[in-house]
């Protein structure tokens, strides 16, 4: 059923009984043209664009749990295009453009809200760095405004401007950034892909690969073997484990990132705010809870839960920025596992094995990339060549030295 004012009205007068399931709970067929492993936002978006843009409709998405149960269901919902390096800006801006048309494209309310993102600066060198980044963004047609202290104070009067160690001097404002409802994105892509004939197979864990000589020719799963002309991996957090089944070692470590939600309060924070002197970012959900996070725990983990030092560090960052949150209670916190790459940037590429394609290394920036990641990964799978917007995200860049180190912190995952 296509969602519209009329469908709402029809259901309103008939007791909400006309709604149909948003997608079929498919059983796997023996073979597909393409199988995407991983039913998160990236995997579903890939399947959707494969069907929509490249006419590859004989596609399955296999997911070990239920769709969206991984990082898509546990992130902090921020979307933005405020990157500074040539390899990154076109990709994230393309993602932002896709976000802007996503709900119309999918006929689904993903609650995309361009409420703005403000990166605060606290020193002269940081102001210069943000001015440079803002200029790089504007040269690529991305919006950016450098605000001074008084402009920030007008927007966010409750911040601690006179903090003794890190007084706020201003901020870089990216008005088109904001938030989107993470589950809505997953459900929207699932429904739209399903309508194009994509099979979404849940509770189906991949346990190995089918090979024809060197070629990857499908996947072994808990629901039996599924042959495929092409296999794409979009399994953030578990990329190394899947790649190891194919005999590949990746430039990836899995790390846990914690995030937190406070109890619900009245509207306080209009957009997304980031603390430039430490690592803390916060927005307010439409239910009223403050959603915030900071650094990763910093050591290899598959545990989907973090440890207390980072909880303390994140809360200290929040208190330094806006002491008024000190009396808020923490409603819940959670940990997601992400595949941290060695340079902090993603990989969308063919693998060294024919028939196997990689979408990995999103570090903790995967959510905002969902639409463009799917778009570019579908292109790579369908055409066997990188999409121009993701041409820098090659796997061999680590061997050739073409790293994309947005933070400039070195080749170590826990620094990104």
């Amino acid at each position: 059923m296509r969602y519209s004012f009329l469908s709402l009205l029809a259901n309103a007068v008939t007791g909400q009984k006309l709604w149909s399931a948003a997608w079929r709970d498919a059983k796997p067929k023996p073979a597909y043209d393409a199988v995407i492993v991983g039913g998160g936002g990236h995997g579903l978006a890939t399947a959707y664009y494969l069907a929509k843009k490249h006419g590859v409709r004989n596609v399955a998405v296999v997911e070990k749990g239920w769709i969206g149960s991984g990082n898509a269901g546990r992130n902090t919902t921020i979307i933005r295009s405020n990157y500074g390096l040539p390899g990154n800006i076109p990709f994230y801006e393309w993602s932002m453009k896709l976000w802007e048309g996503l709900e119309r494209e999918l006929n689904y309310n993903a609650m995309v809200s361009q409420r703005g993102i403000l990166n605060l600066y606290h020193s002269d060198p940081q102001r210069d760095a943000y001015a440079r980044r803002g200029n790089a963004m504007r040269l690529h047609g991305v919006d950016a405004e450098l605000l001074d202290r008084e402009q920030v104070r007008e927007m966010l009067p409750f911040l601690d401007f006179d903090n003794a160690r890190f007084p706020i001097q201003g901020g870089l404002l990216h008005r088109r950034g904001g938030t989107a409802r993470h589950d809505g994105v997953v459900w929207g892509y699932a429904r739209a892909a399903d309508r194009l004939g994509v099979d979404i197979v849940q509770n189906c864990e991949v346990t190995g690969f089918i090979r024809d000589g060197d070629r990857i020719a499908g996947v072994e799963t808990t629901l039996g073997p599924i042959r495929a002309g092409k296999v794409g991996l979009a399994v953030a957090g578990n990329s190394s484990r899947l790649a190891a089944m194919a005999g590949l070692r990746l430039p990836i470590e899995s790390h846990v990132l914690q995030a937190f939600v406070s109890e619900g309060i009245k509207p306080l924070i209009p957009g997304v705010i980031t603390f430039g002197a430490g690592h803390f970012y916060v927005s307010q959900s439409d239910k009223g809870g403050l959603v915030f996070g900071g650094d990763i725990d910093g050591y290899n983990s598959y545990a989907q839960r973090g440890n207390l030092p980072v909880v303390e560090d994140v809360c200290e960052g929040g208190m330094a920025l806006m002491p008024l949150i000190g009396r808020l209670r923490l409603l819940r916190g959670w940990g997601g596992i992400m595949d941290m790459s060695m340079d902090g940037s993603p990989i969308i590429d063919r693998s060294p094995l024919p028939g196997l394609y990689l979408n990995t290394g999103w570090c903790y920036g995967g959510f905002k990339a969902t639409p463009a990641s799917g778009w570019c990964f579908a292109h790579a799978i369908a055409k066997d060549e990188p999409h121009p917007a993701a041409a820098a995200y090659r796997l061999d860049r680590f061997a050739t030295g073409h790293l994309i180190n947005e933070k400039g912190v070195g080749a170590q995952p826990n620094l990104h």
Partner: protein
Amino acid sequence: MRIPCPYCGPRDAHEFTYLGDATVTRPDPAAPDAAAAFHAYAHLRDNPAGPHEELWYHGGGCRGWLRVTRDTLTHAITGARFAADSSVSAPSVAKDPS
């Protein structure tokens, strides 16, 4: 998470800095395949889900480099010894000739 430092006893993870996988060893720069070997050394990781040998620096304590065995699925630590006592060659400060 508490790490049982062999010198200081069990201490909060707060006191430590993580370096990463302890099983990678620095290749011989004079070897004919040095470029590929250094790429693998610097970038490629096994990244196991389960027991993991890793290096931690006890900067908030004895300043020793430790080789810790930790389960990445549970965060349970089953062993910690000085890295200098093992055959790892990674961040061996004692070997600096200057």
